[in-house]
């Protein structure tokens, strides 16, 4: 319940020690509080709510990368190669969820687009972003007979699921674009630039990682304005009906496409940035040979 990082007990003991006047000790304590906040790169004492979500991927990265971790966790298979390389140059990894009030979902004839906006203003100016990945969860498309047991797929959100798929094994294409600006006409598409693309097999449930480093590093450094991303999913085209509906839902780009609301906090899209603030040379990821 302390208002700052200094524990109340310590604060009270120092104030009551009688070494200085109450004003002096208050000043010293406030200075020390600023020193602590600065040490952690914080502006004020964090006071997270109970609803605060810690993505499982970040917990995995902690076990895998931290200098004090046991490195027992292997690299999550869904971790992009570029992200692993980036972590070897970073001493900070940040995660962001998109602003749901600013998303724009559209789905038409085998093509679903979703616009995301991630608020990156909390990244300190002195941090240089070396890489960024946009992670999207893809639940496997099942046939009409078996519904996804989201608990199973959710619990192993970064490993392929063992559910049997009875679908035709369709290939989806997922494109990730940087949005440059608003559409020219009210019903038009925004101006975009392709950042990453991938053909995916829909018989596996897994996280897909896309390299969005060029856009995020420009946004964070102020080189370009942050208009967000657009994710475009091309589904194998089927003749409408329930099958088409199911095909267009399995890439979890919006809460509305995810049945189980309890697992949405861990299945929603996640932007992860890798950066270095110039303090010290210890990085988060050292490969075994180097260690």
């Amino acid at each position, binding site marked *: 319940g302390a208002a700052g*990082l200094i524990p109340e007990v310590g604060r009270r003991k120092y104030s009551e020690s009688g070494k200085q006047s109450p004003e002096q000790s208050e000043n010293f304590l406030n200075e020390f509080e600023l020193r602590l906040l600065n040490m952690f790169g*914080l502006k004020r004492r964090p006071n*997270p709510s109970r609803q605060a979500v810690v993505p499982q991927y*970040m917990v995995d990265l902690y076990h895998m990368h*931290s200098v004090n971790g046991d490195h027992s966790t292997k690299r999550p298979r869904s971790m992009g190669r570029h992200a692993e390389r980036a972590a070897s140059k970073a001493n*900070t*990894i940040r*995660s962001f969820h998109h602003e749901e009030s600013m998303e724009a979902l559209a789905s038409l004839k085998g093509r679903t687009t979703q616009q995301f906006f991630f608020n990156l203003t909390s990244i300190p100016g002195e941090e240089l972003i070396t890489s960024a990945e946009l992670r999207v969860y893809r639940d496997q498309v099942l046939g009409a007979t078996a519904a996804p047991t989201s608990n199973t797929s959710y619990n192993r959100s970064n490993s392929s699921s063992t559910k049997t798929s009875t679908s035709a094994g369709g290939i989806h294409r997922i494109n990730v674009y940087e949005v440059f600006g608003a559409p020219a006409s009210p019903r038009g598409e925004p101006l975009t630039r392709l950042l990453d693309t991938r053909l995916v097999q829909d018989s596996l449930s897994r996280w897909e990682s896309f390299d969005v480093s060029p856009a995020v590093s420009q946004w964070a450094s102020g080189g370009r304005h942050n208009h967000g991303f657009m994710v475009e999913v091309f589904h194998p085209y089927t003749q409408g009906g329930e099958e088409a509906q199911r095909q267009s839902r399995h890439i979890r780009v919006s809460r509305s496409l995810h049945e189980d609301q309890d697992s949405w906090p861990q299945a929603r899209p996640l932007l992860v940035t890798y950066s270095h603030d110039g303090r010290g040379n*210890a990085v988060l990821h050292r490969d075994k040979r180097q260690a």
Partner: protein
Amino acid sequence: AGHRKQRRKHQHKANCRRHELDVDFSEVGWNEWIVAPPGYHAFYCHGVCPFPLADHLNSTNHAIVQTLVNSVNSNIPRACCVPTELSPISLLYLDEYEKVILKNYQDMVVEGCGCR
């Protein structure tokens, strides 16, 4: 001889060295925003830098000279027992915007002590 041996043993025990210090984040109230680890082994340095300074006390030339002067003039303080090597730790935590961050913090663990 036994007495001398006992005194020498005690003296050795009081010399500058690294001591255990386990920081428990819940004790300082940081466990509300630090997700992992729950705490860590920080260690600290404590003890006497005696005259004559033994090699293993990892001292600088200046500390050797200061200790020498102290041995003939007690107004000059002895050298201090301080950390000589520190290492980082990684923290997974929620910041003031409830964003989750994994970050390295420098100089959080004492790896070695010495007289300086």
